[in-house]
């Protein structure tokens, strides 16, 4: 059983019809989020972080949609995407994808008031999310 099959067996990911145009749309949305994140990072660091994270999340969803899958909409769906990011990192040899789980965790912690973001963290998050988006774009 492949690692992706394992995520499907656990009910985290489900099969849907592959949709290239939609995947491309999500990739271009993700690129626009990154540009916006860059533009607002000084004014609103945590907003920029959330946007960068969302860009990476959409790009991963696009890569998954290309192969005819999506994460199931239920609690833990972002975590399921993080597991898929690790699978995809190994399959494609794109180490940038390994960074997704860190972005997810830190974004979660900021949502619950457990942290705030410094400038260097935000620009690094935008850079990492950018690498994730481009790695996913190469899959679509």
């Amino acid at each position, binding site marked *: 059983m492949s690692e992706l099959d394992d995520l499907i067996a656990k009910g985290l990911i489900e099969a849907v019809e592959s949709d290239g145009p939609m995947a491309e749309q999500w990739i271009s949305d993700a690129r626009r989020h990154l540009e916006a994140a860059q533009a607002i990072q000084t004014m609103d660091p945590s907003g920029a972080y959330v946007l960068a994270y969302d860009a990476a999340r959409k790009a991963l969803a696009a890569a998954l949609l290309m192969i005819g899958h999506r994460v199931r909409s239920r609690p833990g769906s972002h975590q399921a995407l993080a597991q898929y990011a690790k699978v995809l990192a190994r399959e494609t040899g794109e180490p940038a994808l*390994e*960074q997704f789980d*860190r972005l997810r*965790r*830190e974004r979660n*912690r900021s949502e619950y*008031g*457990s*942290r*705030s973001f*410094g*400038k*260097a*963290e935000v620009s*690094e998050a935008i*850079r*990492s999310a950018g690498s994730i988006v481009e790695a996913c774009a190469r899959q679509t």
Partner: protein
Amino acid sequence: MLAELFVFAQQPLSLSQLAQRTGTSMGGVHKEVERLERSGLVISKTSGRSRLVEPNRSSPVYTELRSLLTKSMGPEPLLREALASIGGIHEAFIFGSWADPDQMAPHDIDLMVIGDPDPGQVYNVVSAVEAEVGRPINVVLRSEDEWAGTAGAFERAVRSRPRIQLV
């Protein structure tokens, strides 16, 4: 085995979990647990068919022993060594529950790094330590100016709570 029980365990461990985590035979674990229990350092209780072992928190040496084991075998020495290889770090410390001696080993570790190191490098060395200690490490990065100049709710909480200084 003491480090597994006193530093890393988030709940009581069965003998087979201890054997697995320490790479010791069940016979060896059994003998060691007997000895530690006789000396009052650990306690155990039976749950179903398992015997669950945990530190004896009312032992007079519990606090000192846990602190000694954490300093020598926990994430502290690993992080100190990992961060020493990176330039630009003015200060680094563990904060949050992990730094609080009154709390049981929490699920994750909060690390503050102050200075202007390359963030990618910090995340890389920290993720190697994460793999070694088997729990997530949350890194918070601040420049010296940001740390000195900001006083939001998060920063105030970090400043007022216990910390373990690394750099």
